[in-house]
């Protein structure tokens, strides 16, 4: 038997990786292909808890951009564009994230949109360069996903939380 130093699981002799936790049991060996995580990856948390998806007419959406002092409160209409404004092309999205270092954080000019449905609200990625993530999962472009109270959205590297009021 070989005891895993990481999780104490007993593995059969000859195992190369712990079957319980995947720890490389030959940790002294230099042959592994493990790539190092870049330091930014811990920046994004995965939210816990399941908020309601119901969003009625009288509700408002509160968008809390991480590290921003003030949240933004909006009442999205049919389609609410999120991105950053660009003087040259004259693009001016409904929610302009320029002041939140949008350019540095990889937000596209037209990045994503919130859409009103009947008693729900959804988010859709508009084929942005760096992607839209809902609770850590990357969205396929043009495929709307329902939003829930408390969801985390990431546009490129810009993290924000959505609350319903």
């Amino acid at each position, binding site marked *: 038997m070989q005891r895993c130093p990481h999780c104490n699981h007993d593995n059969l*002799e000859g195992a190369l990786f712990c079957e319980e936790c995947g720890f490389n049991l030959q940790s002294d060996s230099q042959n592994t292909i493990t790539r190092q995580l870049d330091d930014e990856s811990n920046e994004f948390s995965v939210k816990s808890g399941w908020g309601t998806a119901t969003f009625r007419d009288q509700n408002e959406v509160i968008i809390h951009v991480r590290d921003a002092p003030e949240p933004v409160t909006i009442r999205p209409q049919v389609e609410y564009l999120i991105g950053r404004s660009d003087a040259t092309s004259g693009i001016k999205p409904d929610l302009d994230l320029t002041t939140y270092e949008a350019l540095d954080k990889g937000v596209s000019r037209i990045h994503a949109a919130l859409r009103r449905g009947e008693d729900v609200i959804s988010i859709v990625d508009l084929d942005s360069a760096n992607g839209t993530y809902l609770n850590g999962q990357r969205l396929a472009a043009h495929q709307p996903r329902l939003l829930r109270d408390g969801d985390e959205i990431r546009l490129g590297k810009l993290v924000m939380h959505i609350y319903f009021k």
Partner: protein
Amino acid sequence: MRVNQDYYALLRVSPGAGEEELRQAYRLAARRFHPDVNKTPGSAILFREINAAYEVLSDARTRAEYDQLLADHLNRLPALQLETYYSRSHLKKLGEPQLLYVMLHLQPVLEMNLISDAPLNLGLVIDRSKSMQGQRMQHVKSAARRIVDESRPDDIISVVVFSDDADVIVPARKNSDPKSTKAMISTIRADGATEILKGLHKGVDQVERNLEGRYVNHLILITDGRTFGDEEECLALAAEAHAKGIGISGIGIGEDWNDNFLDAIASRTGGSSAYISSPYAVTGFLNDRVRTLATAYAERASLVVAPSTGVKLDAVTRMSPNPIELSTDDQPIPLGTIDGLATTSVVFQFQVETDKADLGEFFIGRLDVSGEVLGSAQMQERAVEDLTVQVTEEHHEENPPPELLDALSRLMLYRLQDRARDALEEGNVIEATRRLEFLATRLFESGEEELGQAAMYEAQRVSQTQALSEEGAKRLKYGTRALFSSDDRG
């Protein structure tokens, strides 16, 4: 006498072997694989074949006849080459079972330059149930049209659509009029429920009309739903199709289809299965799949693994191309189409009992791969490898080959998600959560950030709702499986 069998390869002797050498080889094989000694299913198959070979070769008259028939074949090199990597070459004698990993690389011998000439006999079986309506159907149709565009005039294409019922939209025929084929594909409309058996039946029926050795016969099933009540019959039909030389690959779109079912179909026929989360990816995947078929080197390949007594075969996994966990219950294990441009890589996990073993050489078992090399004279090509290690008193310090370690580090990720699902099925939420968290950690370590996030997310979901999301379960399974091969053809 089956002239399409390489009897010399079965007995592991050269075509010039004398009588005594043959007898020795037969005795050794009988000692290893006789059903009285060795109860594994693989050894029963091997023993039957070895017996047949010895019967022919031990009689001077039948041997001469056989040699005559095979005169051309005996003078050239084997068409398939096996290469093996062991996790260790020395096992310490122990009172407990120990693990041994072996990786097999199957390399086509390309001196004959045989690849890519074999025409395809391809059947598309497309789900046109209500849920396919919209983008899914559009993308599947355009993917199908693209396949028609890229196929050669000699390829045979058939298209079957199914919902509650199945229709042959394009009957099996040579691709000489791609325009009208594409027009017929364009007429597909989504409606009704998903009943896979009916579609599969008609699909197999179409491919069966042109079953010839020179074709690569393959069916691709595209679905987004579950079939109810007919899964067992579908699997039986898949086994039948495989016996006739037809491989089946499955593509699941969205999150509602049954992954275990599509995997079972694919592993029974040497095909592959894949998960496509977004309809946009259909074209790329389908195209890749057809391209691997078009560069086929050998068809209807299969593998027999006959572990020796005291050795248990735990798992067989095809790492590349088309990664899939292969079932060890039924032998021979279908390998399907062997790609002429890529190395086929398979990993075996053995459990070895050494307490009764003598010190010195220890026979682990035999790997026997056979398949029909396309374009050659209808000869069943065979390559045999006997696996042996040294059993020693002392522990031997050795480093596993990097190729094998790399493969196992990838396989480990897949196994972790598999074990998390097992724990969940047993109702052990705490263990399932823990395993998903371990999986997330390992994924982050390997730089697979998105998949790691998905694992974290599912871990939290499981701890709160006692269930994985359908989407997350598939994403983790097919996501970790896609990591098996480092190249992008898988």
